[in-house]
């Protein structure tokens, strides 16, 4: 099956010699949900803008439904829905005008879905964009992004700046779309709970590359964090050379190392490698795993 979205060795820099993306490769299958994670500045938005044809990659290729978003922009945009964190809707337009515009642009606009969403969001169609709250504006943007029944929905920080109730409502709508339309979704988010709820796969960007690309459930069940006394191991590289080690960093008196594998097998592996006893290996929630994978070293002040 052709992936709905494929990134192949994408490179992009905004400053010469400082690539934000430095060889990013992954794809999204039809109906799949992929959460795009990474620290601020990791290149999530840049990657999304490349998929939307709003930016050229400096090297590599992007394919949406097998097409190039810059060479076939119309064919691609007819089948894609997009909501950006800082969605700019024209302040002077009313909701009704915005919807009418989208209805004209998309031949397969679904009026029943439009009515259903307007009802659920309790939006007054004659309200002007400038009168809307942040949450309402995001709901309008979502409505405009999904009523043509896209095969791929791209959400860039959809929940950014929303209160918890508005975030949950946004998520409810996304889940209903998943249920009813089987839409593939690529979304970036800093809310690990939302990532857990939408499920599927996570792709973690770090230092211009894909640091991790896994099914969420695999990540939970087959990964753990090991705490090893600092004195027992000379440096992070000694840990990172071990099979299954994804990253090691010093945290005060311990090394924190993320490993692939169950806590029991990793503990045995480590105890054998360093002739140690009583190493602590634990499964951790996604938020902790994220911090362990991309967080910085934590040293006591006296250390260099």
């Amino acid at each position: 099956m052709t992936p709905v979205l494929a990134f192949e060795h994408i490179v992009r820099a905004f400053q010469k010699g400082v690539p934000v993306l430095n060889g990013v490769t992954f794809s999204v299958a039809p109906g799949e949900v992929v959460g795009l994670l990474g620290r601020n500045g990791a290149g999530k938005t840049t990657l999304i803008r490349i998929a939307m044809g709003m930016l050229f990659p400096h090297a590599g290729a992007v394919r949406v439904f097998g097409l190039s978003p810059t060479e076939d922009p119309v064919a691609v945009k007819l089948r894609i829905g997009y909501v950006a964190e800082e969605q700019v809707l024209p302040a002077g337009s009313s909701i009704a005008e915005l919807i009418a515009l989208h209805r004209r642009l998309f031949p397969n606009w679904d009026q029943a879905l439009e009515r259903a969403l307007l009802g659920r969001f309790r939006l007054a169609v004659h309200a002007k964009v400038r009168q809307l709250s942040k949450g309402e504006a995001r709901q309008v943007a979502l409505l405009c992004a999904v009523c043509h029944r896209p095969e791929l929905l791209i959400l860039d920080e959809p929940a950014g700046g929303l209160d918890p109730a508005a975030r949950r409502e946004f998520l409810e709508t996304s889940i209903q779309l998943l249920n009813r339309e089987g839409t593939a979704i690529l979304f970036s988010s800093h809310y690990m709970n939302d990532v857990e709820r939408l499920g599927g796969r996570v792709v973690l960007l770090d230092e211009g590359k894909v640091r991790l690309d896994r099914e969420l459930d695999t990540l939970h069940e087959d990964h753990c964090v090991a705490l090893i006394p600092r004195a027992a191991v000379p440096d992070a590289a000694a840990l990172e050379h071990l099979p299954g080690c994804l990253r090691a960093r010093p945290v005060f008196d311990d090394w924190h190392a993320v490993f692939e594998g169950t806590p029991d097998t990793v503990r045995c592996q480590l105890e054998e490698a360093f002739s140690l006893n009583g190493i602590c290996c634990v499964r951790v929630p996604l938020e902790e795993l994220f911090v362990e994978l991309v967080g910085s070293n934590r040293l006591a002040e006296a250390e260099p």
Partner: protein
Amino acid sequence: MLINPADELPIYRQIMRQITEAIAGGRLKSGDRLASHRELSERLVIAPLTVKKAYDELETLGFIETQRGRGTFVSARLPRVDRAGQLAQMREAARKLLAQAYLAGLGFPEVVKLLKEAGRDLAEGPRAREKERV
């Protein structure tokens, strides 16, 4: 049913655990109908595939069965697993529990009281005790 996305246990396992606990506590009986994938996914605000995964695993284990076009039900014949093995595991768990209780300075009657409470939680569901606390 309640799920916690911040738990280290994946959501599909949380669903599995709550359904098996409800069966163990008698809140779900053979032949009872479960919510559909879609209903449960929208009710809990989680991906439909996560619900499907939980149901698929429970079906493989024999706790539930899907009847085409009718829905998903608690199995008429619930699985009986290796009793001797289970019993050995329970004995081990009991030893661990008593050792922990000893370290926490709890006596045997207090452990029994805790077990009774846990039994009631199983029968009434996790919400019952939440209410009690309020």
